[in-house]
């Protein structure tokens, strides 16, 4: 995208010295970048901002005045069913993230290092949950659960979340495992590490950043999901279901606060993973003399 903008001003051969021309277009890229970043962040900023709003009526859509009272635990937790929904969402998120990350990472490893029958099919099949419309998946899962006489609820939500998260985990972890230098594992074995030790001392630490990123993505997808969850939730309520239900009578600022807190946790998680990535040796090395 950036290149698109960069090429535009070079098209007409501008008169004058080269430096001046460069100075003239120096503002384009920063401005463009700023606009895109604003586009990405404004919704989040609005969410955070309205967590500090003091709405006049039931609707938290108009800025009335600044307050931090929604952050007071008494007010934050005043809706029992919202608390329940948050608890459900977090629990479902953690369980489905864990399960899908473990299975997805193993599938990614298998796909990148073994040639087995049905490998191409699996590679393609993994894209299907990502490519097919969520509504279709939701309906299909419901039909499946009903025909198997399974009562929908907490467990069916977890099952469905694991199902669609795995694809994303596989794709994310595969990006890391496909560039993996197998001779590192040979080296570990050569130095006396059995396969189990080799995995935990060499393979896992090296693909860990990919696994961390994948788990973050899976958690976000799970906490966020409305469509598939709504078909398979039974009586269980998650945050998206509760917010959607509440939107008809007015979403209270507590929802914004919960959202802000979740967002904060996500940011910390990302920062930790970036920091870890740095320490893993992604820092450009200073030039060192040969010899």
């Amino acid at each position, binding site marked *: 995208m950036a290149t698109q903008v960069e090429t535009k001003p070079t098209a007409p051969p501008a008169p004058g010295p080269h430096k001046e021309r460069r100075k003239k277009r120096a503002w384009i890229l920063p401005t463009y970048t700023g606009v895109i970043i604003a586009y990405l962040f404004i919704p989040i900023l609005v969410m955070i901002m309205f967590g500090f709003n003091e709405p006049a009526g039931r609707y938290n859509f108009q800025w009335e005045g600044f307050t931090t009272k929604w952050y007071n635990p008494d007010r934050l937790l005043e809706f029992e069913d919202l608390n329940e929904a948050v608890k459900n969402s977090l629990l479902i998120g953690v369980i489905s993230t864990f399960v899908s990350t473990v299975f997805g990472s193993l599938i990614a490893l298998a796909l990148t290092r073994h040639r087995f029958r049905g490998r191409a099919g699996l590679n393609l099949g993994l894209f299907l949950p990502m490519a097919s419309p969520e509504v279709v998946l939701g309906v299909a899962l419901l039909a499946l659960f009903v025909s198997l006489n399974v009562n929908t609820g907490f467990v069916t939500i977890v099952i469905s979340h694991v199902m669609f998260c795995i694809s994303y985990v596989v794709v994310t972890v595969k990006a890391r495992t496909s560039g993996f230098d197998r001779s590192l594992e*040979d080296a570990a074995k*050569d*130095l006396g*590490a*059995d396969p189990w030790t080799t995995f935990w001392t060499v393979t896992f630490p090296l693909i860990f950043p990919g696994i961390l990123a994948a788990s973050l993505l899976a958690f976000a997808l799970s906490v966020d999901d409305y469509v598939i969850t709504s078909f398979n939730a039974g009586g269980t309520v998650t945050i998206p279901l509760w917010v959607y239900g509440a939107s008809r009578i007015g979403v209270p600022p507590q929802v914004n606060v919960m959202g802000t807190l979740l967002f904060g946790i996500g940011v910390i998680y990302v920062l930790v993973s970036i920091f870890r990535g740095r320490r893993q040796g992604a820092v450009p090395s200073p030039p*060192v003399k040969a010899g």
Partner: protein
Amino acid sequence: MAEIRLEKLTKEFKETLAVDHIDLVVEEGQFFSLLGPSGCGKTTTLRMIGGFEDPSSGAIYLGGDDVTDLPAYKRNVNTVFQSYALFPHLDVYNNVAYGLKRKKVDQADIKKRVEDMLVLVDLEGYGPRRINQMSGGQQQRVALARALVNRPAVLLLDEPLGALDLKLRNQMQLELKRIQREVGITFIYVTHDQEEAMRMSDRIAVMNAGRFEQVGAAQDVYKLPATAFVAGFLGASNLLDGEVEGADGSSAKVALAAGSTIALPAARLPNERGSVRIGVRPEKIFIEAAGSSGGGTENRGDNAIEAMVDISIYTGVSTSYECSTTDGSKVVVYVQNMGASADALAPGSKVRLSWHPEHTFAVEKNSSTEGGDNEMSDRGGTT
């Protein structure tokens, strides 16, 4: 005790025979090279000794014990990989300490051995460095230290200098040789570089198409190549067709297709009669203008043929002449530029090429590796 022995070792990949029933004994403390063109099976052989490939058949003995079915992590053998394969998530110290930690050596001992090893490879004080902060040559030394610190019975090196530039390569060759002498461990060194192999090794095995063409001391393999392939791969050589005329005691006579009869030690003939190919190294041949034959004191030997200069190339230290004999065979001659014979022989001039019977070798005429020979002669000429 650290002798290594291969018995009928074979590796088949789907349709190709990568390593074809090879037998080999490498004695303890030797610097042994497996030399051959890419795809000849030398790396596969090394990987089987290291335990990274399972042999299709045959056996590997390490100090008398059969280790054929032992997994890599249980073999008292360590490898320096072509790509070094250093762990990027560990610093230099922990890379070198990795093997000792697996063996549950106690911390103080690990520290001492790692630091001693870093001194040996000239990397004292580099312990806390990250791998990506090290240059190629330094990484090479870390890889060496990481393998040697475990005191293996045998160290395997898979073209470890391939990624270095020429100057660093030459430096590291000497360094490796020094370290090998200091630690006294058997080194098995895989390379496709004949100069490197000759410079460093006690013994060389020349490999081609999954088999050994010749195994012997570096000098012997160079002086007396057993096959046309070896002659072409190890340095440059001239091969001339001829018919064996018969032996007279220890000396044999061969009539060359190029028109003259030459002599060589009878023991060097691959077959007692019939066709052979006579070989002589370019630097062993004396070249002079055809008319002046016979009288020169510089005459290097009794073997002589008539030829014509095609091309002469002046390279400073020496001049190389490409000549063709009367039957069309090509002969390359290197002449040291010592100043005396300043008048270079011009292309087209008739010359007499002579050499000593002692410098003559012979290989089988219809060896299966003739294709390889032609290909390798070119390579030999360029190095």
